[in-house]
């Protein structure tokens, strides 16, 4: 908590010494992740910058209460990179026909998407351990057959029932929350 406070205050004050500290501590890990996931060196700085800006903005709205600055910051970086890859894929599918947007617009969209992601994550964490396991596999593209093997259920039908119930549960939790109505999906 103290570390988070120190970093965020320093960022708001424009304290270069502490910002350099952040680079020295965390850049290497973020860089390794991006380079291992189809990225280039020049992508890393943009991701790092946007992740820090997201943290700042969130902290300004409401002081952040997180246990590990490193873990939270790395998650933000990973999500920014997931978004970049998704946009690149969409661009390829549209034969490059995707309007290029300026950095601030891009970051603004990410900020709203990340907030939505955190909302879903919060609901996902409210599920039972078994539901998290089943849905985690299902959402990451596993077929019913693969889940059957992986989690040793008795039949495909049981897996199907389980996925159905767990998915219904998370959708119900989301819909019951007032924040759902602000999503404007």
């Amino acid at each position, binding site marked *: 908590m103290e570390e988070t406070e120190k970093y965020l205050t320093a*960022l708001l004050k*424009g304290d270069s*010494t502490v910002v*350099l500290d952040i680079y020295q501590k965390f850049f*290497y890990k973020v860089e390794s992740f991006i380079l291992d996931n189809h990225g280039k060196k020049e992508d890393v700085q943009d991701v*790092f910058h946007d992740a820090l800006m997201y943290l700042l903005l969130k902290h300004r709205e409401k002081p952040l209460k997180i246990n590990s600055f490193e873990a939270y910051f790395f998650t933000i970086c990973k999500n920014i990179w997931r*978004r970049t890859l998704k946009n690149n894929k969409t661009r390829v599918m549209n034969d490059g026909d995707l309007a290029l947007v300026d950095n601030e617009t891009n*970051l603004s969209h990410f900020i709203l998407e990340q907030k939505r992601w955190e909302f879903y994550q919060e609901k996902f964490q409210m599920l039972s351990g078994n539901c998290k396991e089943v849905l985690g596999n299902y959402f990451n593209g596993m077929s019913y057959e693969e889940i059957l093997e992986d989690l040793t259920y008795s039949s495909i039908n049981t897996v199907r029932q389980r996925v159905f119930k767990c998915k219904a549960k998370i959708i119900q939790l989301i819909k019951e929350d007032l924040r759902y109505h602000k999503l404007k999906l």
Partner: protein
Amino acid sequence: MNSEFEHMREEEIMRFVRGEMGPEELNAFEEQIKSDSLLKEEVALQRSVYNSLNENEWDTSEMSTTEEIEELKNVLNEPGLKRASETIKQVGNTYASMDTSELKTSKKTYKWLAMAATLLLLLTIPFLLKNQDKDFYTTYEDWNALPSFVEKGSSQNSLALAEELYKKDKFEETIAHLKENIDAESTLYPASLIYLGAAYFKSQNSAKALAVFDQLVDTKTLYSSYGYWYKLLIYLQKNDQTNAQKMLDVILTSPDNYNFKKAEEINASF
């Protein structure tokens, strides 16, 4: 029956979301979505959840109005956040230009070797390092040549008197005079802080000197970077290598910073 229908509908939605439908089924389902607003809403939510919780995807469904985006862009353009953004970029460029290849190699392959070397250094040559720091300090300290900010004909102002006292090695009097007359609204405020910090240092009060130079950095004026330089001198004098290196790194973020060249020289052999 109802539950069975629900089940089938769920299966359909998920096959649609996961891109598992054949062309015919897909066309038919898209037609249904167009004419059924409840189904449309359900599909949008399930797609959003699926893409969010799938680690190889990301949910980019449009959910925001232009106003919300514009509002966020305005916030990002506020001076405080704009300044933070610039600092992050500037420090990022400096970090990128630093030679970290050795560090990375040691992290990957020679971690044990680096640890052993560090231990050896700690055990055997601290005195050498101390002497080296002292040399840097002796070579570069410039407390007797602080920049003068007093223009000719303005010898009556408060800073002029402080400079005069300081030059005569009357450090306690410099401090007393400046404490009484310092004005945070004055354009000479940063210059006054330079003399106040230096006078504290010369009076053997490094802690207060460092605090004053921090204030100088916080003024966010052209003279802010003087604060880094004088803090560097203090850390060198105290043999505090870690903080001295931090100051060097900050000064080297921009050639516009005070004594950038000297910092480069020190950094080259630090």
